[in-house]
């Protein structure tokens, strides 16, 4: 799962990036409204954390411009502006959630996970597919009731596939949602992650569709 964080305050931006990475997300950052707006349009994110008081272009305008251009990814406004009037403006501009500063990092993470889950049509934080159960709140995997440890990259690959179960996910799409922009995007490493995941999952859970990408086993559901 890949996130964009648009926040001008350097210290907070770094904290957000580190904390969200620890929570299992690939995180891209932007320090002003113009960069943020551009990244939000050209890159594929699963959710965006957007500050309102941004240099260059204010967050509300960035959000409106995204929505006007058909960008439909969930956006969480993380802002010091905490009045209800401001919340109304933010939500009406197309935000999916609103969190006022100062905030608890766990709450931000929980809300982002919920946003991503809802955006892919899952109402429940537990994604279940056959014997495989992914808890998107705790970032834990259980296979037939047994806890299985995952690395951050493995979690992201599996979570993306689980969120988009039922269709083929291409190599490039998966790469976009698993790596941050500045990461080493050798798509061959994706094969390594998939191979490791396959060892932890039931036989045939992740199918390779030759020339197209990967898909989860229909029969498993």
């Amino acid at each position, binding site marked *: 799962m890949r996130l964009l964080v648009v926040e001008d*305050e350097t*210290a*907070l931006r770094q*904290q957000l990036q580190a*904390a969200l990475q620890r929570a299992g997300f690939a995180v891209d950052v932007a320090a002003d409204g113009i960069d943020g707006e551009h990244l939000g349009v050209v890159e594929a994110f699963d959710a965006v954390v957007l500050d309102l*008081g941004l240099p260059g272009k204010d967050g509300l305008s960035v959000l409106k411009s995204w929505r006007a251009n058909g960008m439909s990814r969930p956006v969480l406004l993380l802002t*010091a*502006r*905490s*009045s*209800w*009037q401001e*919340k*109304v403006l933010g*939500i*009406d501009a197309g*935000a*999916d*959630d*609103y969190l*006022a*500063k*100062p*905030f*608890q*990092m766990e*709450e931000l993470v929980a809300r982002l996970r*919920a946003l991503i889950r*809802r955006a892919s049509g899952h109402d429940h934080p537990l994604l279940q597919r056959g014997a495989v159960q992914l808890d998107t709140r705790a970032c834990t995997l259980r296979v037939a009731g047994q806890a299985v440890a995952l690395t951050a990259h493995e979690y992201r690959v599996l979570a993306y596939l689980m969120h988009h179960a039922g269709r083929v996910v291409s190599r490039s799409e998966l790469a976009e949602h698993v790596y941050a922009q500045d990461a080493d995007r050798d798509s061959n490493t994706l094969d390594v992650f998939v191979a490791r995941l396959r060892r932890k999952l039931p036989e045939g859970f992740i199918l390779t569709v030759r020339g197209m990408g990967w898909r989860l086993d229909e029969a498993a559901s």
Partner: protein
Amino acid sequence: MTVAAPSLRRRLLAAAALWITLALGVVGVLLVLLFRHHVEQELAARAQTQLDALTSGLAVAPANARVALATEPPDPAFRQPLSGWYWLVSVDGETRLRSRSWWDHAPPALPPRPPSRIAVDGPAGQQLLLWTRTVELAGADVPMVVAVGADASRLQGLTRSFAVTVSAALAALALALWAAAWLQVRLGLAPLARLRAALQQLRQGQATRLPGAHPAEVQPLVDELHAVLDDKQQLLDQARQQAGNLAHGLKTPLAVIGNLAQRMPGEDGELLRQQLERMGRQIDWQLMRARAAASARRTVATPVLPALDELRRVLLRLHAERGLQLQLPRESQAPGVAVEPEALKEMLGNLLDNACKWARGQVRVRLSVEGPRVRIEVDDDGPGIAPGQRALALQRGQRLDERQSGSGLGLAIVDELARLHGGTLELADADLGGLRAVLWLPAG
């Protein structure tokens, strides 16, 4: 307290009355003097005619050089005793001839060559005016003095009756002028009364500008006042803006420190987190007060339903996980409250958010107008608050349940805002089983 300056109206009226009275008084005196002079002229002219007649009738007898009157003046008044008209002829201070009207009174002794008009005591206590002429007749060795007298009391009587008439007329005129002055002052000061009414509207917040057109003399005052108002509004906006900037500027660093504290182990970390939470609450509280201070003095009518509608969208989004039912009143009930939209949304937002946080599945808002107040009732089907805990829930910074996120100010902010806007917040049990929050606000 300062000593009240004298009333403008009283001052104008007093000046007008004084001036009118003085001017009319002088006019009255002048008119009476003029009349008296005129009447005296008339008397003098008549006396001269009589003098002419007397003089032409005088003759000196050659035999004894005595003065005799060939023909008496024809005026019958000279023959009627004490009629008020008299004549006499005197030589060397000795009366030689006199009219019969003197009756048995001795005419006054006239000196030789007396002034042409003298005042003397007459018969029966009359005051006489005597017009005299010194005549030198052929055959007489000394000049004769011929005099015609008239009773001055006639003159005085006429003057007095004229003075009475004139005084009455002038008094009536004075009354009319006083009335005109009063009317003028009233009309002239009417714009000031209108100005006062307009100012009152302004102060009560029914207007932000002095309504209506004002006379050219008052308009500059109104313009200046508007300039002062603009300055004040600007200062207020600036203060509000600065309070907001300060608060918002502090929140991001607070978030950064908070994130650090979160990773700090032990008692120090806990203490830091507590202090940070207090700072956050302080900022929210003071920011709310700064906003309310600027808005609570103004009176507007904000419809409640649109505000609820907007907030419903936000809350359903913020609590999307919960699948809540948020039931608003029907369209037909659309009361307004005397609270600025932002403050109203702040109160309703906090109430609804609190209800949504605790509700199991249902939140219901009901509205009604009761007399001069609007009643906004927010019910939820959550666990509610025990009666003994309700007062605590309204205290600043009290969080009855540490598991819920938020600053813990929600209900306390609503309570304080309601009070600042002349309303109240009451907590009770809801029909739905949870908490019922009743917000009373003055109707707009």
